[in-house]
């Protein structure tokens, strides 16, 4: 059998595997469908004197600055950091829905068209219940400071980058969801929102792992190594960017901390946070590294080649 035939056969097998996975995911989504507007019992108020966010997920955790704050201050910080976490989920969902809407019923994505309907349906539910929490108990959804302007001009690279970003954000958010869903010190509504999101996201992540792998395989056959390294650099930087989204000066300000920008800067750089960032990124890094998409350590200084620009 020639190399070409073997490659074609592998591609057909890959598409067959992906189609079978999408069928299973569609069935699971149908079986586990719920009405978000009836699913949750929203308390009129949430406790102001107990945590909303797990102590070990606070951005001060593992740093000497934690002990500069009283229990009450850490509790208040957790309230606003949870609103921040849910807020950037809301904005991330808006962005990923736009990506999927661009791809649905577009050639090249036929295998995932059907599942995209479930994906969009579930993401819309998530966006609603996260925003609902923020509005009810925080009085607002933090606005996003992200601005989009493209750097890669090739459509297939842009699409791959968009799906890779979705996967990274889902896997890191899932790390938080799993922890909070299991934390018995948190209010039931917080635990349930995290649990429901985790359950839906496990299917979205399964799709993402397969779609990103398939897309990258196609890119690796088409583009030179230099382009692949630019993609790697961008995704490595995105991982760092994403975990830094948890350090929001507006949340520090709302929690009553003076010098909110200084808090962000010193916490991001605090040695104790490195191990936490590694844990939060562990699953996503393992996938991207095992597929040779990203081999750079997002937090290693000098890991980003100078002059590489992407957006």
């Amino acid at each position, binding site marked *: 059998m020639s190399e070409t035939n073997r490659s074609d056969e592998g591609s057909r097998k890959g598409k067959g595997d992906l189609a079978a996975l999408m069928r299973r995911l569609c069935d699971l989504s149908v079986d586990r469908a719920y009405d978000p507007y009836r699913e949750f019992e929203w308390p009129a108020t949430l406790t102001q004197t107990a945590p909303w966010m797990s102590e070990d997920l606070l951005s001060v955790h593992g740093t000497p600055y934690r002990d500069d704050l009283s229990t009450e201050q850490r509790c208040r910080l957790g309230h606003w950091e949870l609103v921040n976490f849910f807020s950037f989920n809301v904005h991330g969902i808006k962005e990923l829905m736009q990506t999927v809407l661009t791809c649905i019923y577009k050639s090249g994505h036929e295998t995932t068209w059907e599942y995209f309907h479930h994906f969009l349906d579930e993401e819309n539910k998530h966006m609603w219940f996260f925003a609902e929490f923020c509005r009810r108990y925080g009085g607002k959804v933090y*606005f*996003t*400071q*992200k*601005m*989009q*302007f493209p*750097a890669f001009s090739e459509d297939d690279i842009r699409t791959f980058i968009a799906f890779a970003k979705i996967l990274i954000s889902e896997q890191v958010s899932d790390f938080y969801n799993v922890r909070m869903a299991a934390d018995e010190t948190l209010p039931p509504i917080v635990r349930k929102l995290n649990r429901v999101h985790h359950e839906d996201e496990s299917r979205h992540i399964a799709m993402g792992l397969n779609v990103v792998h398939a897309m990258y395989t196609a890119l690796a056959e088409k583009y030179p190594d230099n382009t692949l390294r630019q993609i790697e650099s*961008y995704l490595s*930087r*995105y991982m760092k*960017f994403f975990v*830094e*989204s948890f350090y929001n*000066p*507006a949340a520090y300000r709302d929690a009553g901390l003076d010098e909110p*920008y200084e808090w*962000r800067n010193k916490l991001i750089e605090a040695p104790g946070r490195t191990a936490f960032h590694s844990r939060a990124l562990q699953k996503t890094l393992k996938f991207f590294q095992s597929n040779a998409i990203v081999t750079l350590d997002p937090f290693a200084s000098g890991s980003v080649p*100078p*002059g590489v*620009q*992407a*957006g």
Partner: protein
Amino acid sequence: MSEAHDDQIDYAAVARLRDWLAAKNGRAGEITMDTDLINEGVLDSLQMVNFLLYIEEIRGREIPEAMVQPAYFTSLRVIYDTFFHGF
């Protein structure tokens, strides 16, 4: 928003912004008041949030949501006129 004449510009603030940009991409000395920060690749979308927060830190006030648009961040002159001069 009005444009600042050169003799009205707080060059210390501009220097801090330029130093920040130069430190991020190693292009010290190349960034003038009118360098196109976005189209010339001085800033990309991942760097933009940190740059925006740095501008907030220097000016001591949040940037309103309505102004979180690339059009307000195209050059140091536009940034200065928008966020520092008469704002």
